[in-house]
């Protein structure tokens, strides 16, 4: 098989699963964990943590992971910590986090990030939110295309220019 022909064929086979499985996976979990308010909080926070997260549907991914992947203890710690965003939003701007002006949202998250990064713990609810945001973005179609991870190169170059 010629290389060009091979690549065309690979592209065709790679497209097949997209048709078969794509829709299902992007659906929300059947019994979502996040209430409307919490989901909005998570979605806004994710966008401030990593611009582009909303377009990449990171909120749906986080809900899926909380519902079907994390342990009850991990989920409880995450959901128990999340209201801290509203507490800090109200203290700073008199409103729930998602309703704060963008600058205040960024300030709240920056402070939290400094505190949690300084503590060096990955168990903190904010560390988990950040991890899920980055992971969810980088494994989404939007993220993988933006990062140049998709489509695949289908060749190997061990010394390519950056």
């Amino acid at each position, binding site marked *: 098989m010629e290389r060009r022909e091979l690549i065309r064929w*690979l592209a065709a086979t790679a497209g097949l699963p997209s048709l078969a*499985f794509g829709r299902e996976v992007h659906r929300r979990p059947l019994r979502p964990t996040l209430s409307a308010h919490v989901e909005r909080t998570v979605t806004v926070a994710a966008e401030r943590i990593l611009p582009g997260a909303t377009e990449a549907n990171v909120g749906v991914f986080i809900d899926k992971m909380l519902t079907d992947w994390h342990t009850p203890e991990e989920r409880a710690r995450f959901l128990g910590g999340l209201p801290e965003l509203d507490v800090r939003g109200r203290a700073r701007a008199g409103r729930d986090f998602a309703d704060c002006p963008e600058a205040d949202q960024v300030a709240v998250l920056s402070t939290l990030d400094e505190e949690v990064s300084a503590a060096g713990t*990955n168990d903190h609810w904010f560390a988990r939110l950040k991890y899920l945001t980055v992971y969810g973005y980088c*494994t989404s179609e939007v993220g993988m295309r933006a990062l140049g*991870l998709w489509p695949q190169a289908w060749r190997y170059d*061990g010394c390519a*220019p950056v």
Partner: protein
Amino acid sequence: MTPPDFDAIVVGSGMTGGWAAKELTELGLRTLVLEAGRPIVPEQDYVEHRPLWEMPFRGLGDRRAVAVRQPVQSHSASFDELSHVFWTDDADNPYSTPPDRPFFWFRARQVGGKSIIWGRQVYRWSDLDFEANLREGIAVDWPIRYADIAPWYDHVERFIGVSGQAEGLAHLPDGQFLPPMALNCVEQHVQQQIADRFGRARVLTIGRVANLTVQHHGRAPCHYCGPCQRGCITRSYFSSVNATLPAAQATGRLTLRPFSIVRSLVYDAANTRVTGVRVIDANTKTEREYSARVIFLCASALESARILLNSGVANSSGQVGRNIMDHIKWGGASGVFDGWTDRRTIGERPNGIYVPRFRNVTSRHPDFIRGYGFQGGAGRAGWQAALHAPGIGPALKARLTDLGPWSMSFGGFGEMLPREENRATLHPTLVDRWGIPSLHIECKWSENELAIHRDMNVTAAELLEAAGAKHIEPSTSGPSTPGGTNHEMGTARMGRDPKTSVLNGWNQSWDVPNLFVTDGAAMTSSGCQNPSLTYMALTARACHYAVEQLKRREL
């Protein structure tokens, strides 16, 4: 007397079962291949091009299901969210170990067996390996030497396709190589620096791997997509599904029966021959027998031993189930390299570097016998490095595309000595989902393996230091769990004496001449090389011997 149903029965359709099927059918035998698991249809079951975003857990796997159904299998290096279907269900297939001595028994039940999910590294043995037991007074002597197996290495390599670089090392013989895959820029640098420091005493070469770099027997070259363990729609790596079973099918003499679990062998004590196998249908649990003139056990080392133990045959030596070996790993080191910041890798090379064994080759190490090889490679970080990075917003986003410095790691694979007390026995009460008695496995490393593991950290750091790496960090992992390298072997060893071995120099049972065992069970020692190539060569060799014997009516 009614004629047997088939000329030959092969139990298992994986790495060695596929080879037995190909050789026996091509030599004219009507052959039944019994596979315990399901059929595989590449167009449906191979999913290597499915992107992460189409996986429910984005590659992290269904953690809760895995904890319940595959707590052992999930430790395998190539187990992932999609490939997990190619491993067995631990709940259906239980076994036991002493509580303080875990053993990972990785098992695959589908057409193709573990050849679908193997690591594809293929290295020849040499007489350094075949003579080692005799030279050092360990266990029993191999009944064969390199000259006996060399033509069969050629035979297997020519068919499966092995990409690699000839190095002219006596203790890691060159083979029938397709063009090698490329070393990346830092690996090339490290190769040169090691050569400058150590000459030919320590050599870094590209891995020898059963992935094609050119078109080969109708199979396309590798396209570097990465996750081989999920299948390969271009058939670019060797598996029995991709190569040997189609060849057997083409003869018109193959009957492949999936969902067929072999409970035991049917033994004719008067004639000391096996006449057939008792098979349980995996779906209906009904039992039936098939008969044949010759039987090949290719069910994987521990599964073949289990069948022998459940049959009560071929064990006058008492060695069936004993001498379990694996390779010890998780020793090594990593380091960081300045430079090449304007360079990166593109594509996913399904292969790394190899440093052939250099301990106890020309000199004698004070702390241990035998040795180890290194696998590994160099690369730059991806977005994963940003998962725990400080910062938010545009600054964090910029980090996602920051490749960071080049780093390189070496991980050792060390030889394990055969010891009779490392043993699998039939469990007195535990049975699998089909009511077949399961195994109790007792296996642990000896001081020799642990000394090898410690030495890996030292010499890996030496290699990195010679290459000019910075921030060299020796491995902090303890030794791997026995079985964890997925190289289990030795449970029906070959030898020169029926009193101390199960098989003769042709993989033929001393006790039952028409019974052959050609998977990892046959191994008399473990070497430190990845073993599948040797299993395949032994299988092809045994098949030709068996057919000659059949023709002479000596079976």
